[in-house]
């Protein structure tokens, strides 16, 4: 099951501490995810994002949806290094997303890995959605 995932990375012209601010701060996270994130970045925290720059597929790619509602659960926080989230929305089935900060010579790499949530975990995310 370890291979069933999507992964990508981006190299940013900032220090690792600045890169961490872009994912470890809810306001900054929302700024580039394209939604309004209401979430404490601490393990076990539950929150949400309203709006998204992505959504259903069209011929030209994903179409943003300002009304999209995403439930988010913080699974793991290693300050400055790693953030693990689980999320689900009306437009996409549940998945986990892990952001990893990797210092480079003159930049900082953020590795992003998204995995579909297995059956048991999907049920947990389902409870989150149901009580929103």
């Amino acid at each position: 099951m370890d291979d069933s995932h999507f992964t990508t990375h981006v190299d940013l012209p900032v220090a690792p501490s600045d890169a961490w601010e872009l994912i470890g701060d809810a306001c900054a996270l929302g700024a580039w995810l394209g939604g309004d994130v209401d979430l404490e970045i601490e393990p076990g925290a539950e929150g949400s994002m309203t709006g998204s720059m992505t959504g259903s597929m069209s011929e030209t790619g994903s179409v943003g949806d300002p009304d999209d509602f995403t439930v988010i659960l913080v699974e793991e926080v290693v300050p400055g290094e790693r953030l693990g989230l689980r999320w689900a929305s009306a437009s996409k089935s549940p998945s986990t997303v892990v952001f990893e900060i990797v210092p480079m010579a003159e930049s900082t790499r953020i590795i992003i890995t998204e995995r579909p949530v297995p059956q048991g975990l999907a049920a947990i995310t389902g409870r989150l959605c149901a009580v929103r």
Partner: protein
Amino acid sequence: VTPIVRGPSEYNDVLAALSDPMRQRILERLSTDGPMNASEVASVLPISRQAVVKHLRILESGGLVGARTNGRSVEFSVRPERTVQAARWLEQTASDWEQRIDALRRLAQERSDCRDAEPTGSRTVRP
């Protein structure tokens, strides 16, 4: 409130099944040659019948192939709909992250530019 979860992960088993190069080759064979039993698949690939059976079971559990009894033999055939679903998940996920990463790059560049514009005396020493 109706839960928005669609039930079990629709793609995890499919993606896992597709992740192995030999299973990809088996799928290609079944796609081009039509339904085959395990012995027939083993005869055209460099692995044992036992290994083929193991791979076919994983493909079957991922919904990528279907099994049908034909006399004393079990024939396997491709179920393309599950492969298409998994491909769509990957396509949409890749497209989503492409857009988010573009926005992340812009935001990081803005912050980098702001720091470069700060007077030297006000800069903070960073790790």
